């Protein structure tokens, strides 16, 4: 073999459908398109099997197949002859390939209906470049030879320097909010990714909530994803990173299968389609679990409109950063922050500006708080906000400590690992996004003051 399989890595991103030809023992060829071929090593690839189809039946009779691999950008092609070795029905490779299928299934409402049956492993017998398939283009060749964008000008030591910079910023963060900012700023700057978000895991509700993001404008904090739901939920449940190239193509593939299932006896198992998180037109995503001491802490999700934005290299590189960030988040969440001993109430209370008013409404049914008729926050952060607003409006006080929130049984904070700090960050961000004239301002370690430029009125409503 003159061409090495690893030289064709970009062809394995699943961007371009791959043709696969097989032949039955009676000599009748068959050809179909595959959505995904997985590179294993220089001599092996794996194909995902979701249905017992003609390809599978032909392979059982005659194990040799030919696949047509095309580069997703330059369209240069290779003809690869492969021979079936075995099917795997469990194990790390199966789990990795199943995760990708599960994500498509979840987004297209086919969880439990569309699933991986086996990971089929093939030996590579022959690789032949297809000469003459594309007309020459110097610009395309240049694009193909370019190194990863983030370190193009920095030489071979650029990668290490970037990892060091990221690691330094994470290590120096003195609180959870700064840590999440450091993680998001580092990944977006160093990797030239415009869209990134960090979601933290709420163990008591088995849901993830967006704590902070970059590139989505205002209003992204607080968005929630259930465990196992869509791309982010699937990564959180499996605790394995997942890279999706050409997400639009995957969704079209999923929808095509869904149309077939709609007319079958399994139609009643279908559920609604789940929109992609963040960018509606994202073409590639890299989602990394944040896991510390075998516990899920959250998820780091990156998105791009470029279908080839993320490579194996990004996945491996960012996984190192994600692991370090996860440990740092877990440490900050677990340690009881030392509080300043001074009593609350020493800072000066601001007076509202003339003519400015805000109306807050609390809905006890789901602990939701609305401001001027617009949804603001719900659940535990909603209860916290309502407590501090009532005490603020009654004129009793405007400063609060984390300790007193923990001691207040009515708030219902879990006794262990309450994640209070992350909930206060979320509350502060939601206020910044939805009503910036009402602010939670840190006054010292473990204490904050509520400030308002507006006159506040409060009401409760039983109606949802």
């Amino acid at each position: 073999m003159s061409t090495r399989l690893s030289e064709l890595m970009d062809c394995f991103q699943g961007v371009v459908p791959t043709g696969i030809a097989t032949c039955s023992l009676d000599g009748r060829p068959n050809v179909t398109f595959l959505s995904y071929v997985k590179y294993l090593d220089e001599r092996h690839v794996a194909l995902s099997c979701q249905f017992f189809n003609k390809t599978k039946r032909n392979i059982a009779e005659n194990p040799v197949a030919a696949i047509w691999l095309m580069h997703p950008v330059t369209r240069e092609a290779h003809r690869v002859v492969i021979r079936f070795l075995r099917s795997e029905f469990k194990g790390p490779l199966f789990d990795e390939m199943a995760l990708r299928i599960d994500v498509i299934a979840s987004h297209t409402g086919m969880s439990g209906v569309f699933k991986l049956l086996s990971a089929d492993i093939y030996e590579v017998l022959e690789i032949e470049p297809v000469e003459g398939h594309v007309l020459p283009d110097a610009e395309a060749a240049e694009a193909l030879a370019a190194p990863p964008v983030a370190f193009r000008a920095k030489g071979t030591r650029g990668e290490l320097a970037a990892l060091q910079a990221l690691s330094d910023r994470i290590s120096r963060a003195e609180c959870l909010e700064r840590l999440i900012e450091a993680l998001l700023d580092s990944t977006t700057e160093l990797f030239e990714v415009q869209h990134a978000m960090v979601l933290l895991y709420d163990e008591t509700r088995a849901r993830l909530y967006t704590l902070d993001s970059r590139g989505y404008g205002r209003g992204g904090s607080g968005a929630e994803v259930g465990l196992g739901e869509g791309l982010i939920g699937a990564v959180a449940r499996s605790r394995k990173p997942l890279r999706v190239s050409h997400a639009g193509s995957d969704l079209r593939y999923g929808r095509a299968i869904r149309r077939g299932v709609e007319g079958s006896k399994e139609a009643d198992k279908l559920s609604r389609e789940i929109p992609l998180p963040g960018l509606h037109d994202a073409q590639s995503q890299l989602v990394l679990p944040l896991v510390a001491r075998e516990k899920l802490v959250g998820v780091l999700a990156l998105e791009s409109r470029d279908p080839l934005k993320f490579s194996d290299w990004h996945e491996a590189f960012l996984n190192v950063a994600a692991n370090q960030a996860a440990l740092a988040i877990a440490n900050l969440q677990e340690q009881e922050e030392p509080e300043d001993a001074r009593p609350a109430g020493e800072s000066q209370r601001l007076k509202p500006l003339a003519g400015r008013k805000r109306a807050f409404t609390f809905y006890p049914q789901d602990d939701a708080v609305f401001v001027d008729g617009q949804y603001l926050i719900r659940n535990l952060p909603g209860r916290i906000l309502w407590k501090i607003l009532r005490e603020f409006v009654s004129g009793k006080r405007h400063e609060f400590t984390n300790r007193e929130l923990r001691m207040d049984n009515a708030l219902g904070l879990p006794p262990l690992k309450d994640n209070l700090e992350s909930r206060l960050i979320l509350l502060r961000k939601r206020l910044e996004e939805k009503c910036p004239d009402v602010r939670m301002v840190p006054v010292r370690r473990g204490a904050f003051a509520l400030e308002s430029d507006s006159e506040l009125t409060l009401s409760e409503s039983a109606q949802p």
Partner: protein
Amino acid sequence: MIDETLADFLQSGLACAVATRDARLVPDCVLAAGVRIERDRKHATVFLHDTISRRTLANLKHNGQIAVTLEHLPNHHTIQLKGEVTRVSKATEADIADATRFHAGFVKEIEYVGVAPRFSRRLAFLPCHAVTFRVEAIFEQTPGPKAGACLKEAP
């Protein structure tokens, strides 16, 4: 064999893959410019690039067995035709005109799914051979539980 609706679909400029096999039953896979459905609706002609399809053309000369799959990339609607080759010849001017039309449709399709024109328009399809085959069976090939179902067989 091929009704008007299906003929219109198959000739609408789709992604087109061709499978053949050699004497040892080793399959080969190649992309083609598209298919033309002949007037009798029993035969189809696929256009194969001379250089990249050398192995395919040799296989067809040996045994004539062919499978052609056509996919509409935006929704993955896919059909497979299987049959036996009746004629292989250098493309005529009329063949080249048809191949050019199909190829232009295919280029639009891959641009729709995100391939930049700078690259999609570099795909070579000429000079080509016109390979006519008798359609013996038509299969549903859209991904999903019904993929592989036989829609029609020649008597």
